[in-house]
């Protein structure tokens, strides 16, 4: 078996790190695999913490600053853990003119969180999407991977309640 010079130690014996390492290896541990590897980390762990960024930097042999730069440049990556439930409100043009701001306002008022934030008890994260591409269903939102189309503010609140307290 070929061993790499300076092959990085996995941060812990969590099996998910092996999946991350496999992605890097598939791309020959080349620096251009950075975004693909970060995708795998987020898929496995839900978010990118400092540990993960350091590991990715060492496995691809790129400066930590570059890893941090890419992780913060792209909106898809998040450095904070998400809540147990996530509600994504689409703010695409079609949803915007059909009342997405009202949905956001209702959720913000009820749970006192803004887009990108999580409730203090870690139950709900409120997120926005540029466009879900479900413009025929405007205004649209996604509650825990269930798409809610043509939804009114009071209905989305009811749906979130049901999601959090089934």
């Amino acid at each position, binding site marked *: 078996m070929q061993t790499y010079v300076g092959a990085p130690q996995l941060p812990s014996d969590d099996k998910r790190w092996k999946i991350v390492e496999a992605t890097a290896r598939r791309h020959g541990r*080349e*620096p*251009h*695999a*950075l*975004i*693909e590897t*970060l*995708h795998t980390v987020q898929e496995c762990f839900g978010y990118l913490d400092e540990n993960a960024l350091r590991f990715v930097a060492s496995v691809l042999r*790129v400066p930590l600053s*570059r890893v941090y*730069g*890419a992780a913060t*440049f*792209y*909106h*898809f*990556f998040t450095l904070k853990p998400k809540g147990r439930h996530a509600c994504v409100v689409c*703010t*695409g*043009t*079609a949803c*915007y*003119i*059909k009342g*997405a*701001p*009202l949905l*956001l*306002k209702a959720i*913000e008022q009820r749970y006192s969180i*803004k*887009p*990108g934030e999580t409730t203090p008890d870690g139950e709900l994260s409120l997120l*926005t*999407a*540029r*466009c*879900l*591409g*479900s*413009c*025929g*269903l*405007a205004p*649209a939102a996604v509650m825990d991977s269930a*798409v809610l*189309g043509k939804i009114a503010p009071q209905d989305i609140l009811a749906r979130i309640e049901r999601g959090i307290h089934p």
Partner: protein
Amino acid sequence: MTIEELRKIAETERAAQKKFQHHVCVCIAAGCLSGGADHVRDALNKEVAESGMRNEVLVKGVGCMGLCSAGPLVTVETAVETAVNTDVQMFASVTPEDAPEIIRSLDTGGATGGDLAAAGLHPCPTNVPFFERQKKIVLENSGKIDPERIEDYIAHDGYVALVTAITEMTPLEVIDRVKSSGLRGRGGAGYPTGLKWSTVAKTGEQQKYVICNADEGDPGAFMDRAVLESDPHRVLEGMAIAAYAVGAQQGFIYVRAEYPLAVKHLKTAIKQAERMGLLGNSISGTRFSFHIDIRLGAGAFVCGEETALIASIEGKRGTPRPRPPFPAESGLWECPTLINNVETFANIAPIVRHGAEWFAAIGTEKSKGTKVFALAGRVQNTGLIEVPMGITLREIIYDIGGGVPDGKQYKAVQTGGPSGGCIPAEHLDSPVDYESLARIGSIMGSGGMIVMDETSCMVDVAKYFMEFCMSESCGKCIPCRAGTQQLHGILEKITAGEATPADVALLEELCELVRHTSLCGLGQSAPNPVVTTLKYFREEYDAHVTGDGCPAGTCSCGAGTRACRAETRLGAPGSQTSAEVTL
């Protein structure tokens, strides 16, 4: 794989499908899927099994049928022996509970719309302008074939163009055919595709790349996603033909991570094509080899710009660089790189198959072929449409779209997303082609088309797009980074009713500056929504600054109610802090 082998696969597949008397197609593209189309398909399958019709009824998941607002959609096709006169019935808003009724309607055969409606179904006539006014090239298989089966694509003449091109044509002949078809880039700018190809082909380098730009970032646009979800092989075939023409061996599809279904279908399609020897090493026994890899985007709008996209594939932050050198000469890893949009590649196979003259006969003098649009907003029929170039906006919005609902008055249509403009009623009869749209201040764009009625405030719409550009600016060049901030600030002030006419003058001046001094297309086109609304809806700006209030009643300056004020202010994530302060 030779032409004969392809024909054999196609015939086997057609024969296998013909065995079934009834074809029940369920749209499982993202729009209908979010309405529960997968459950509908499962229910239909279960019903077919239970009623013992497994040998007569074929239930298959297909791509987008277009009328997304009426989803989930199901079509029922009963094959008549002659196969010329097939009877297609479409159902809208289908639920899993409708499955027994749909299967029962197959038995009775000639059930009329009335009978079906009485049975609780929603028959959807297909002989209406929404379907009849369209002309489908890119979407010809969409809603007809199973996107996860290569055999179904081959049964619809798939990969014939690729095999013909590499076995019977020289690369130069392929380029000439694309050139004389008059195809122009469908990403929005409209650069002649054949010309781009020949630039890449002429470079003497050994290593070249072909990239498919599927980073569809415009809010309100979902054309590329629909094509990738509904007919992924068409894009692969187009890319392979392009690679043969320009002399590339490696291709990348840069697709948004937000499109999981499109990614899944693409991955399946690549695997299938490789297994059949239609991608990979020495395709069709020739010396031509071509591999395709997928690269996931990570939610940066600027990566739709080609040099930023290349940076992103290289694993860097997606920031653009000055051109020239253009990617055609120095692109990915400094090698000559051909970048085309999804829809451009989707047009290639039909052009090679039917010839350049056939394609050039569709459309206008300078804009050939068709264009796919995502029609949405305040319009009766929202969904995905494909129309010949040169059709008027009025035909699209009123005939195909069915007009503005709820008795409201049409105000504007927005094309081209954050880089485009708002087109007022006076230009509704303007034809849809690259030049005409540019003349009235908008752009063709990638194909988003959002209709707005009297309830939308044009200043607020301009602010919405400016907020988008502001937060999506990559920050590399100052005019875009700082300019969009300032423009957004002025628009905030106007919608809050705190601006003076001097602010509007400053707005205009700043628009010019940002447009002429920004590094890439994002900044250069960011002022477009403001410039067009200023041009056509000046009175709305004036009303905001002279104290007359917002004519649409959505902004916070006077005329609108306090409730409206809160709504609009909370509209976009980036404006949260200011909303908090003013509330």
